[in-house]
């Protein structure tokens, strides 16, 4: 950090409180976004206070509501962790949506056709296939960037469309549910369905997602790999001079973030839809970008951010029904959010 940057730091913030500042700016952006959400509610002819009340009730009002919120948090958390790691190393993977669908497709195919009667083995095989497919789809982007320097943002984004079209073709033709008149993919083998917790109605994938949080934190903070990621993020040139292979790191980060998106896709298939279903993601791969950024690219932060966004969207769904408001209000907030976050963040840095 240069002298001039240190000199322009606001005096009211002691230099030690980087984390505090980051937290405060996140909080500031959250509050501002909630105000904007309230304005959108007003525009739509609703009443902000009762709308937010309905939202909280919709996310926490009953064990089932909490469960629905958690079910939504699972893919956001898993993908958010992978993206946070990749973004830390300045690998801007915006292809999680496509990687999720490739994971759902491969994992789903295994869960439909693999003749294994032993549930844990079938589930494990399906999850493995999904992660591998997500990683492979992300790996295409990784190779293009690592080998030829092709901008990963554009390639990963364009591959989203391709992945979704491949998935659409599969559920329309070869993997269509027999006799189904519309775009309905085949059901998975009932043995492959993830066990569901009573009352909450949450599939057990939620434990896997939560377990990934300390794992990601450990990877980032305590391993040589995490060290290299942080070095690349801080100063790519210096990292290369210190012997970090940026090609290998780009590849690794695309494989990991792609694999995690694939995992999210499989869990949606085995735990939520229990069939090949285009509806398993409502743009979660993009929402996960917001989650990663809001969570400051930090594992614990991503956990909080995933739950926050899940409360917003899951509760928002309930709110839109009880208050008669367009659900799109909830979809509008994350975008508003990121912009506030960038500004708040920059101002906090001074």
């Amino acid at each position, binding site marked *: 950090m*240069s002298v*001039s*940057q240190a000199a322009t730091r606001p005096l009211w913030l002691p230099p030690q409180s980087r984390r505090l500042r980051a937290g405060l700016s996140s909080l500031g952006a959250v509050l501002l976004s909630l105000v904007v959400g309230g304005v*959108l509610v007003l*525009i*739509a002819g609703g009443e902000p206070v009762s709308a937010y009340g309905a939202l909280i009730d919709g996310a926490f009002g009953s064990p089932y509501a909490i469960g629905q919120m958690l079910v939504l948090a699972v893919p956001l958390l898993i993908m958010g962790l992978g993206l946070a790691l990749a973004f830390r190393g300045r690998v*801007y993977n*915006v292809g999680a949506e496509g990687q999720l669908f490739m994971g759902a497709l491969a994992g789903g195919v295994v869960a439909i056709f693999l003749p294994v009667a032993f549930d844990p083995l079938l589930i494990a095989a399906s999850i493995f296939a999904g992660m591998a497919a997500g990683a492979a789809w992300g790996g295409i982007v990784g190779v*293009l960037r690592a080998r*030829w*320097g*092709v*901008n990963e*943002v*554009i*390639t990963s*984004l*364009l*591959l989203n*469309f*391709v992945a979704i*079209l*491949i998935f*659409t*073709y599969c559920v*329309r*033709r070869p993997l269509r549910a027999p006799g189904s008149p*519309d*775009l309905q993919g085949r059901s998975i083998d009932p043995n492959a369905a993830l066990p569901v917790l009573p009352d909450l109605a949450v599939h057990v994938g939620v434990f896997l997602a939560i377990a990934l949080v300390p794992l990601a934190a450990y990877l980032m903070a305590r391993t040589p790999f995490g060290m290299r990621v942080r070095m690349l993020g801080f100063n790519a040139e210096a990292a290369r001079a210190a012997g970090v292979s940026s090609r290998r790191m780009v590849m690794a980060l695309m494989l990991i973030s792609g694999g995690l998106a694939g995992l999210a896709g499989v869990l949606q298939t085995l735990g939520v839809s229990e069939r090949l279903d285009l509806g398993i993601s409502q*743009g979660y791969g*993009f929402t996960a*970008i*917001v989650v990663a*950024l809001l969570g400051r690219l930090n594992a614990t932060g991503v956990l909080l951010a995933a739950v926050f966004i899940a409360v917003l969207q899951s509760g928002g769904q309930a709110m839109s029904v009880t208050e008669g408001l*367009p*659900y*799109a*209000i909830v*979809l*509008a*907030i*994350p*975008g*508003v959010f*990121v*912009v506030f*976050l*960038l*500004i708040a*963040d*920059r101002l906090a840095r001074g």
Partner: protein
Amino acid sequence: MDWGEIFGPGALVVLLSSSVAFAMPTALAAVGETVVERAGILNLGVEGMLLSGALASFLVAYYAKSVALGALAGIAIGVGLGALMAFLSVTLGTEQIINGIAIVLLAQGITAFTFEELFGGEEQPTIGGIADVDIPLLHEIPGVGPVLFEQNVLFYISVALAIAVALLLTRTRFGLSVRAVGESPAAADAAAVSVARTRWLALLIGGGMAGMGGAVLVLGQLNLFETNVSAGRGWIAVALVIFGRWNPLLVLGGAFVFGFTDALQIRVQAVSGGIASTVPTEIFAALPYVVTLIVMVAATVWAGRDAQPGALGAPFRKGVSA
């Protein structure tokens, strides 16, 4: 399915003329993005600017019943988002890639909200199309005439605008400043060219062009708006800049490759017979994205990245060396 309906002698002219028409929204955005990138800013918000331009132009054309006002509204919202991108990337100097993604997410959220709030639960609203104008004499040229000179007025304006902006970049003093701040901002600064001002202007132009692209898509071709109607055209525009080696005229040419694949997939969908079709329409639908990816990668692999502006993506702060 009858392929003669797409490639037959009579149908081919229709296919090619809709190819050039469908190239225009992307072409406008891509030429605008070329200016922005030549100024050293990697603007990944093009998709959001195009989408917002599409909605704004649709709403104005729908309520005010004026195509001209609609197009202006599209440009205006694009310029507005260009200003937001400039504020974040130039004034605040935050990471450009993230800023661009943020603008796309913002635009997707706000347009979905606005459209659903106004038309949610109603029948798909449409606006009237605009009539084609035959250019005297030129439209009688066999083959070329019906493809290029029997288009609507927005098409002609788009072509003129794209070429004008291309010339602005390559042939004017302002264009020289743009290229200077993109290649070496410190040197440009030393030569008394304001880096911040030049980059701001470039982003206003780029935003306006993307917004106009959205307007042309809606007013000139689709005559309707739906959620995420831009369908990645903004991202394709960014890819085309790479494919066109940051040369605005090559970029414009690349847009026609995309336009052809886009027109082709729309024709295939139209004649294939919907979800019962045995034709893998999805392969054709994926074609614009796949072809764009391939040509972009090929351009990078074979031609290297030497055409890329030297300071692309790097924020500039006066007095702080990079």
